[in-house]
Structures are given as C-alpha cells and as structure tokens.
C-alpha cells in the first residue's frame, strides 16, 4: 500500500520532470507551458470547464479565481494535505466534499509554473487542435475519390445513350444492321495482329496487378485488434483531453513510446471506478490485474498481480530502428502525424502504412529544425548551399541506410 502510493507520487514526479525539462525552451509563451503542465499533471483529475463537471476533482475554469486567492491556490496545489492539516476552513470543506480524496501534492512547482497553469485555466483550451485538421483532410481525400466515380458513371451513361441513338437512327434509315459482336469478330479475323497486341496488353496488366497485390503483403494498415481492456482513447485523450505524454511518457525520452504501466492507470482510477460507457466492467479489469479493492479503496496485500497483455498494433520489423524521442522530441512531430486522430478512436487502429516508402517520403519532405544548436556551424553553409530553401531530413543523410538499419 505504502510503497504503491509512494511509487504513484514518484511517477508524478517523473512525468513532471521531463515535461518541465522539455518545456524549458518554450518558456516565453507561458500559456503553452501552462497547457503542457496542465495536461501532464492536472487534466487527469480536473476537467477544464465549469466546476459541476467533476472527474476526480472539480472542473476548473476562471470561477476558481473568484472562490480562492492566488496565495491559497499556491498552498493548495503545492501540498493540499498540509493546508488541511493546518485546519484551513475552505480546504477542509473541499476535503469533505470530495470524500477525503487528497489531491496529489506538487511541491516542486514554482510560482511561475502555477501562474502559467492558472493562466491556462483562465484562458481555457484553444479552439482548433492539429488532430482535427488531420481528420478533415482525410475525409476530403475520400470525397475527391467518390466525385471521380460519379463523373465516370455519367460518361458511361452518355456513351450508352449515344450508341442507342446511333442504332435507332440506322433503323430509321433502314441501314442493314450487322450484329455488333459478329462484326468485331470478323474484324479481328481480318487483322490477327490485334489479338497479339491485346494479349500482350493483358499479360502486362496482369503482371502489374500481381505486383500491386504482392506489394501490399505485410502492410497492416488499419489493423485494429481486439484489446483485453476496451480502453477508449476517445474518452481519455479526446473528451478528457489527457495529454498523450501523461501515459506514453517515455515517448519524449526513449525509443519506445511505452505502454503505461498499470500504476499509471491507478493514478486516476483509484478514484474513478465507473466508466461512461462500459460502467465498472472494464475498469475492474485493471483492479484485477493490480489487485485493488474499489470498495475499500485499498490494495489487496500480497496479491498475485498479473500484467495486462495488450495487443501490439504498430509492429515495425526488427530490422528497422525507430526512435520515438527522435521524432517526438527532436523533430517535434505531433503524435497524430503518424498515429492519426487517436483522440477520436474508440478502439485504436494502425493509421499509417508503416512501409519504408512511407518513412522515406516523410524524410524527403520534412524540414529539419536548423535552429537546433547541434547544427550550429552549418547554418551559414546551408544557406549559401541551398540558397535559403528549406533543408529537409534527407539532405543531411536522412535517407542513408544505416540511419535506421543496423
């Protein structure tokens, strides 16, 4: 029990540690910083909106500033428990109201940090997020296709119409009509070379067809396996707006995005034990795994814990080295760029092809962050070499074999 709580605290610390370290360089715009901090630390318990919308704690919006003073908020956020101990009235009321659930302490938050967070809370969430764009574009894609079909069908219809008109006219002129197919047959007989050409054509198109089908082997796009727990990214990431990095927090630091360990789930689900859609059923699976008794809110002592066996969706072949931190941290890509609109997926599926061609094309197009001091001496050279045009990944060897294969 004790160790678990401590490890939970530790987790929060870790989560916080890199969020701060990565956010140090975008220190200037503090709302952004506030947002990242909020999503990383608060979003899991606090909905960004009217107080009535309760997750674990109350929903947060500018109302809080009416209810509480900044100083009080500092105290509360840093260590609510202390505040309660001290016998602060407001604090104790809250404590009672949220049936004695202590809010996580963030002793390491600087005033600056807290200000940022509060600032973010005051302003509220920005309207459009990158993910939505993603989706719309994809939809447009499909639309353009359908329109094409429509046009084609219209053309076809016209042709048939014309033929019909021709025939009727012939009838009218009482021109003797030969059977269409018969005439074709004769004509073919007359010049057999056509057959040759036709057959060649067929053969080649056949080969092309085979090639295409072959090239789709092993491409698992839209792979959407059944998961042991019906975990909905839509609810967590979409509706509750929990930042991807809260659970997949190693994505910025390591080659693996990492699947959250159960204790990360427990950070929230210690308190939330009923889901919007599936009720208790799915959440209980977590409790089963980790041995937690939702009624007594306690961990069953020396319980034989069994890990959750998630089904892996994105499988790169072992011969390809892929590093999340390279793309998320250094390149600063959105998770959605490769994983698609996860925050809208009830059940996650493989959004991208994940073929080498797919990787390489992105490397061909994506511009590198030339401001990174890593490239310090090269800026000038590049400017006169490429005449200021953008420097893409492949220009600095992003297409070389052993960048991914070793």
């Amino acid at each position, binding site marked *: 029990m004790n160790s678990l709580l401590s490890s939970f605290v530790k987790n929060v610390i870790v989560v916080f540690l890199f969020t701060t370290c990565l956010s140090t360089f975008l220190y200037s715009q503090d709302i952004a910083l506030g947002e990242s901090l909020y999503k990383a630390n608060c979003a899991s318990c606090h909905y960004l909106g009217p107080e009535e919308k309760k997750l674990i704690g109350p929903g947060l919006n500018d109302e809080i500033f009416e209810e509480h003073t900044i100083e009080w908020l500092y105290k509360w956020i840093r260590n609510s428990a202390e505040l309660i101990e001290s016998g602060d009235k407001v604090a104790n009321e809250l404590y009672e109201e949220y049936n004695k659930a202590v809010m996580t302490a963030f002793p390491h938050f600087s005033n600056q940090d807290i200000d940022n967070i509060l600032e973010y809370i005051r302003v509220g969430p920005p309207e459009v997020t990158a993910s939505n764009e993603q989706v719309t574009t994809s939809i447009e894609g499909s639309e353009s296709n359908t329109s094409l079909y429509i046009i084609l069908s219209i053309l076809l219809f016209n042709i048939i119409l014309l033929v019909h008109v021709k025939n009727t006219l012939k009838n009218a002129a009482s021109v003797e009509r030969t059977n269409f197919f018969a005439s074709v047959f004769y004509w073919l007989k007359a010049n*057999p*070379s056509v057959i*040759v050409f036709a057959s060649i054509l067929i053969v080649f198109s056949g080969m092309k067809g085979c090639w295409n089908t072959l090239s789709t082997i092993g491409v698992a796009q839209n792979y959407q396996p059944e998961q042991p727990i019906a975990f909905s990214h839509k609810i967590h990431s979409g509706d509750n707006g929990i930042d991807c990095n809260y659970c997949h927090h190693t994505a910025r630091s390591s080659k693996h995005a990492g699947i959250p360990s159960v204790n990360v789930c427990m950070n929230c689900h210690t308190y939330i034990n009923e889901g919007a859609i599936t009720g208790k059923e799915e959440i209980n699976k977590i409790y089963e795994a980790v041995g937690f008794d939702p009624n007594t809110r306690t961990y069953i002592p020396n319980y034989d814990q069994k890990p959750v066996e998630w089904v892996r969706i994105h499988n790169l072949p072992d011969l390809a080295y892929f590093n999340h931190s390279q793309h998320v941290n250094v390149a600063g890509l959105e998770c959605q760029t490769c994983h698609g609109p996860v925050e809208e997926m009830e059940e996650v599926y493989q959004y991208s092809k994940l073929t080498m061609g797919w990787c390489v094309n992105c490397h061909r197009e994506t511009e590198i962050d030339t401001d990174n001091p890593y490239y310090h001496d090269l800026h000038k050279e590049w400017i006169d070499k490429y005449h200021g045009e953008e420097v893409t990944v492949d220009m600095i060897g992003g*297409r*070389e074999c052993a960048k991914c294969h070793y």
Partner: protein
Amino acid sequence: MNKEKVIYGLYGDDDVILDAVKTIRSKGHQVNEVYSPFPIHGLDNAMGLKYSRLAICSFIYGCIGASCALLMFWYIMIYDWPMNIGGKPNFTLNENMPAFIPVTFEMTVFFGAHLMVITFLIRCGLYPGSTSKSPDSRTTDDKFLMEIHTSGDEKEVKKIKDLMKITGAEEINEK
C-alpha cells in the same frame, strides 16, 4: 462465267522457277506468290516485291532502347534516390556515364532485336497456332510452287498454263 481462277505451277529447281517467274512476268502476267523450301536469291526482284523495311524498324527500336536506358539511369541513380556509392560521382548523368555504357548497350540490343522479331512475326502473320498457307506440302521439302490469279477467262488460263509448261513446271493445276 467470270469466276476468278488460281493456277499453280510446281517446279523442281530453284533456278528454273526463277527464270520462269522472269519470263512469265515479262509476258505481262502477274505472279502472285511463290512457295519455296529455301530463299531463292533474286526472286524478290524478279517478282517485283518491295524492299523490306525491317532493318529501319530495328534501328528505331534500338534508339528507343538506348534512350529508355539513359532515362532509367538518370531517374534511378541521379534523380530519385542518389547515393554515395564508393565515392563515385553521381551528380549528373554524364559524370557517371562510363558506368552506364554497358547496360545502355545491352538495352539497345535487347529492344532492337526483340521488337524487330515481334514486328516480323506480326507482319508475316506468324504466331503459334496459325496454319500454313502453302497449298502443296512439298514446298517445304524440295519443290517450288508458283501461284497466279487470273480472271477465269479460258484463253488467259490456257496461255499461263502453256507458259508454265514451257518454263519447266512439273505439275500444273488450277482451282
């Protein structure tokens, strides 16, 4: 009464039929076809056949082959995915050209040869399953067959048959 007739004259020797063709044409008759087991030199002139343009085709095909090859090199080695391979310069096509010459040549020959042969087969209407036009199967062995189409005018037919006889035909039949 105006039914068209075809007259076949079967000869036993290539020189004989060659002379025959010459004389018959000099008499102002049209020799439609000659079936022979092997090429007879000068026969095409004697029959007044047009000169065959296969060679020119082949040349054109060859050129196509060469240009395809060069285009492929440029696209693959220079444009689409340039790589530093052993420090060899692949900045422009001609810098790297020496390495491309062998394959360019091969492609040229490949196109030239195959496309020409295909053309030949098509022009001659030769393809698996097509059957021989020759009315007499001996023409692939040691006999030479002359074929003349006439308007079914008796006198005319007669004249041709005589001509054939004179020029040394072994058999003459008509249909």
